[in-house]
Every structure is written in C-alpha cells, then in structure tokens.
C-alpha cells in the first residue's frame, strides 16, 4: 500500500525529475569534477549549473553557495566558523526552539569550551520578543543563529528584520532555513543574512546533500580542511549525483512555489479546520500566521501522541508527534515546552506536514479517521471530558 505521507518536514520524496537528472552521474558520468580531463570537465560543468540553480532560488550569486553533506553540517560549519573568525567574542545567541542541529551544537560548545550561550524564549504562539532579542546582542556576541521556519510548528521568524538588527551591531547572522527554502520566497542579496543553511532532502532532493550560503566578504573558516574543493571552504570530493539533484530540486521548487502557497496551503487549512471542528478539546500549536503553508501542529487533550501515531500507522497514514514517548525521550518536545503548551496538551501533539504530492483524497481520509481514533483513545484514558475545561467565557468588564 502506498503510504499517505503527511510527514514532509521529516523528509520528502525525491522528485522523479530530480532522480532522472541524478542517474547518469552514478553510472557513465562518474568522473571527478576537479579532474583536468574533458570527462571530468563535463561533470564539473554540470555541478556549476547546479550551483547556479541553488543560487537562483536563494537570490544570491553562485559563488556564495558552498555545497555540504547535510543541513547539520551547514549549521555546524556556520557557527564554528563565526567563533573562529571572532576569537575575542564569547557569546552565541540563538533560540529555545531551534532544531537539535543547532541546540546540540551550542550546548556542546558551552560545555566543552565555556561559551556564553543565550537561548531566547518564545511566547505561547512561538514568536520571539524583539526587545529581548535586541537586548541579547551584546558587543561580546560572535554569532546570532535564528531559524527561518520552525520544523515542528511551521512558525516563521522575521529573518530580514532580525538580520538587519544584527548587522547594525556588527554581529554575524546565520539562519537555519532548512524548512523554509523552497516554501518561502527569498532574496538573500536584499537581506543582511551572512550565512544560511539548507538541506536537500527537505525539498525533494536526496538525503545527504546540503548547502551553506556564505555572503561575499563574510570572514569564513572551514570545518573540513583538506583539498581545494569548494574553493577551500569545504574539502572532500563532491557528492556529484546528489548535488546535481539538489540543483534540479531548487529549480523545481521555484516553479512549484506558487502551488505550495495556494493548493497545498488550502489542503492544510482544510485539514486543520476540519480537525479542530470535529474534535473537542483540540488546539493548534503555534501562530496561525506567518507560518509555513504545509505545516499544522495540533494537540488533542487527554490522549498520548504515540498512541495516535500508531493507530494512524495502521491505516497507512504517516505523521509525527512531539510527545515524549514517540521521541524515545521521557519529556515532550522542547519546542512545545518553550511555548508553554500545557502538558495536558503537549503529550498529545501531532504534526502534519504536507507537500505538493498530497492529494484531496488523502486529507479526506484523515478527516474521517482521526476523530474516531481520538474518540477511541479517550475512552481508554482516565482523564476524560468531564474534567475538561469549560469553554472560555467572554471577557468581563471589570
């Protein structure tokens, strides 16, 4: 059975056109793009085209794109580079809701090298407080890293504005845009972003390819040191098929962006509104807008997320959850906790993330089946509707 795949923030299907573009570079066109012979030059030329295609999607120059092996590598490179080129500065500013690719790294840097790490809080809707952001940017700050869009809630941060504030203060600005690239139009040349991470497998390219945008003139120190590849900014022979696929995927993302923001958004809204209307004691996690057009994170009170996922799985429906059990940890998602989502809700959160492959029929199926699943699980739960909150009373005039 073909899965009903509503977990596109975890990874996406490689687009058939991307695969077609990749295949020759696994077989007959296997040369090393750095080689001096014509055979190598053929692959090198194709890699240059891929770089231009990525740059076109980002709105930057091709030589500002450094190919890497994943989003995590891009994130690690950016942060460590900034710390190396600003050796006199000891502060790293980021947010509580970043992906582990950032949070795990900065915690490590704090523990092993004593950096002063500031994790900015968010409000109940997942938004940053601009005043707190400005206050955190002291002269001792080496780098600010704020994600463009949140992978769990889809909430979008105002990156053009935040990067401008950092630049005014002479602080390098990095953004983890792994979830945003291909879904949000961007023109980096018109922002003050110094570095940006992206990952291929989130936009219908293959796993294990990524890129780091480094604005021209930004001081930079490589993470991987060795040969001369990527102009010395990232050594190691390039994953040519993967990166050529990434180029194609970026080109396709450009052409599908309008659809993502109209058809996919409409499907997402129908799913979200349908579920919130059909299931009592459910709520949306995160701000409604600005938000990625494909993501919806909904909590169902009194039930546990992993149990919901497993019953969805029985029907071939793929989603994910911020509950403790589903992650293998014992605490619910750090993003929902940072937003202060009550634990009566946090343990029962489900994230749906759609893509251009999602169909109307798939959304219909979830809308028929999920309310039944919640109902069944609530009948098993000792915390029943009787303890439920009454509807919020209208505000009083006192």
């Amino acid at each position, binding site marked *: 059975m073909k899965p009903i795949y509503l977990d596109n923030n975890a990874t996406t299907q490689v687009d058939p056109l991307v695969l077609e573009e990749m295949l020759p570079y696994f077989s007959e066109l296997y040369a090393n793009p750095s080689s001096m012979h014509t055979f190598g030059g053929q692959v090198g030329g194709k890699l240059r085209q891929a770089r231009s295609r990525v740059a076109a999607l980002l709105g930057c120059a091709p030589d500002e794109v450094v190919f890497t092996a994943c989003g995590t590598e891009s994130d690690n490179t950016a942060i460590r580079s900034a710390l190396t080129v600003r050796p006199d500065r000891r502060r790293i500013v980021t947010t509580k809701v970043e992906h582990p690719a950032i949070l795990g790294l900065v915690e490590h840097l704090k523990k092993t090298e004593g950096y002063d790490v500031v994790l900015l809080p968010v409000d109940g809707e997942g938004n940053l407080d601009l005043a707190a952001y400005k206050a955190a940017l002291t002269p001792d700050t080496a780098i600010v890293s704020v994600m463009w869009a949140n992978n769990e809630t889809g909430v979008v941060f105002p990156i053009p504005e935040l990067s401008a504030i950092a630049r005014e203060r002479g602080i390098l600005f990095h953004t983890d845009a792994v979830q945003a690239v291909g879904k949000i139009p961007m023109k980096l040349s018109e922002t003050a972003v110094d570095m940006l991470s992206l990952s291929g497998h989130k936009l219908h390219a293959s796993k294990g390819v990524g890129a780091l945008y480094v604005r021209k003139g930004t001081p930079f120190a490589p993470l991987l040191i060795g040969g001369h590849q990527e102009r010395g900014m990232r050594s190691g022979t390039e994953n040519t098929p993967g990166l050529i696929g990434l180029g194609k995927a970026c080109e396709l993302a450009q052409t599908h962006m309008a659809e993502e923001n109209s058809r996919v958004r409409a499907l997402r809204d129908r799913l979200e509104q349908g579920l919130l209307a059909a299931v009592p004691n459910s709520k949306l996690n995160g701000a409604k807008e600005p938000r990625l057009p494909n993501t919806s994170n909904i909590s169902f009170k*009194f*039930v*546990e*997320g*992993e*149990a919901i996922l*497993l*019953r969805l*799985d*029985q029907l071939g429906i793929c989603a994910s959850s911020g*509950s*403790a*059990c*589903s992650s*293998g*940890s*014992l*605490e*619910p998602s750090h993003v929902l*906790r940072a937003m*202060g989502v*009550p*634990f*009566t809700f946090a*343990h029962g959160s489900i994230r749906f993330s759609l893509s251009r492959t999602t169909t109307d029929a798939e959304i219909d199926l979830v809308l028929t089946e999920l309310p039944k699943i919640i109902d069944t699980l609530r*009948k*098993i*739960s*000792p*915390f029943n509707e009787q*303890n439920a*909150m*009454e509807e*919020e*009373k209208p*505000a*009083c005039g*006192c």
Partner: protein
Amino acid sequence: MWDYTDKVREHFLEPRNVGSIENADGVGEVGSIACGDALKLFLKVDENERIVEVKFQTFGCASAIASSSALTEMVKGKTLDEALTISNQDIADYLGGLPKEKMHCSVMGREALEAAVRNLRGEAAPEVEGEIVCECFGVTDVQIRRAIAENHLTTVDDVTAFTKAGGGCAKCHERIQEILTEATGTPAPASASSPAPAPKPEEKPRMTNMQRIQLIEKVIEEDVRPMLMADGGNIELVDVDRTTVFVKLQGRCTSCPSSGITLRTGVEAVLREKVDPAIQVKEG
C-alpha cells in the same frame, strides 16, 4: 518507529477490560498526565480475595496501554496474593517483550496493582523511603535498587528505561552509577568513583516531585478550579518546577485587572496550605 511485538500491537489495538468499575473494592492510581503516562486500575474480589472483575483506564503510549491490558488479563481469577507475585518482567514476557526504553510501562502496571491491593486492604501508601535520586521523576534509591535487583540492570541507561530515573535533566546520572556500583559490585566504566556518601539522615520523609505534582493537580482540580469557576474564570496547570507552579488563567480572570491578586491570594494560598508552604505561583 518502535519495534513492538504483534502481541503488544494486538493489546494496544484491541485492549481488554477497558473501563471502570462502579463500586470497586480496590482502586490503584499511578503516574500523572505531567509525566506522560498514568494508569487507573479497578479490582473487584470475592470473599476469598479472588479477583472476579478487573478494569483499567490508561493515558499513555501504545506500550502503556498494552501493558495495562496484559496485566488485567494476567490477574483475572487469581487471588490477591497470587496476583502480587507478578513482576514487571512477567508483564513484559506476556507481551513477548517490550523495547528496553518502554520497560517503565510494565513497572507502572505492577505499581498500579500494588496500589490497588493496598487500597482494597485499607493499607496506607508507604511513605517514601530512602533518598530521592531523580528529582525530575521523583525516583528514590530504594526504587532504583529494587529495579536493579529484579531486572539485573547494569547501566544507567537500563535504570532510566525501567524507572525513568535520569530521563530528565540527567544531573543524577553519577548518583545512579554509584548505586549500580554498590548493588552489582561492578565499578563504573570509566573513572573510579568516590566512596558512596553515607545515607543522609532524613528528618521527615520528603514528597517526591511526582507526588507533589499529583497533589498540586488534585488541589487545583478539587479546590482551586471550582473557586475560580464560580467567578466565571478557569485555571490550567502548565508546569511545576520544584516549588514554583506555573498556571494559565482563563476566561474572566485573564482580562480582569485583579487577576494578579486572584493569583496571589487565591491559588497560592490554597496550594501553600494544602501542598507546601514554599509554593510560589506564577503565570506562564
């Protein structure tokens, strides 16, 4: 995706004995919504203390629901004394095994059974013995030692999987390793550990974090909420960090300028009186 056995899936998808018993002879409740799983077990016995009816309600993941369902099938028809010989490993075995990270679900089953039997026999809940090792989940050294002995645990990860201890902030990992070393006689993997500190003389049994959270939940449900609802307001417990209680006020009190006063004088006073004089209530 967890690697669940067919038996776990079967008991999760078609749980046996779900529900409550109107006039149960014994009811056992363990866990809380805050901790991510909770189990309520209802028992009815005949004059020979033989279990004639058993029902459960569980909030939790697939393995928590399956463990509860399995437990009810296992105890049915047994006398209480026979039922009490069931170990958490027996529950896991009945299900064809549980992933290690989920073993605490089977431990929860056994604890609910013990609580229900105590309730039925009119015994008081045992005071917390020993020293609290894991503050996040309120686990004592006594509970950890028992899990180590009964399940032949050898690593800190094992202990977390079976008791949840160490699954939060991870500050207690060193202490858990010390207990493991004492209990099993095998030294810590890396550096030699210092001699275990002598058990602290406890003036009075402390409440575990989990007990405190449960009590706070109960007081809010039973005392605070009705009080606020009478005024057209409502309250939701958001989080508990030791003695700081974070709540969300809803309805009338949110927009009312006196909500600061409502908080301090109302909710905090009640919680201080009924739970702990050190409690501070914050909105967040």
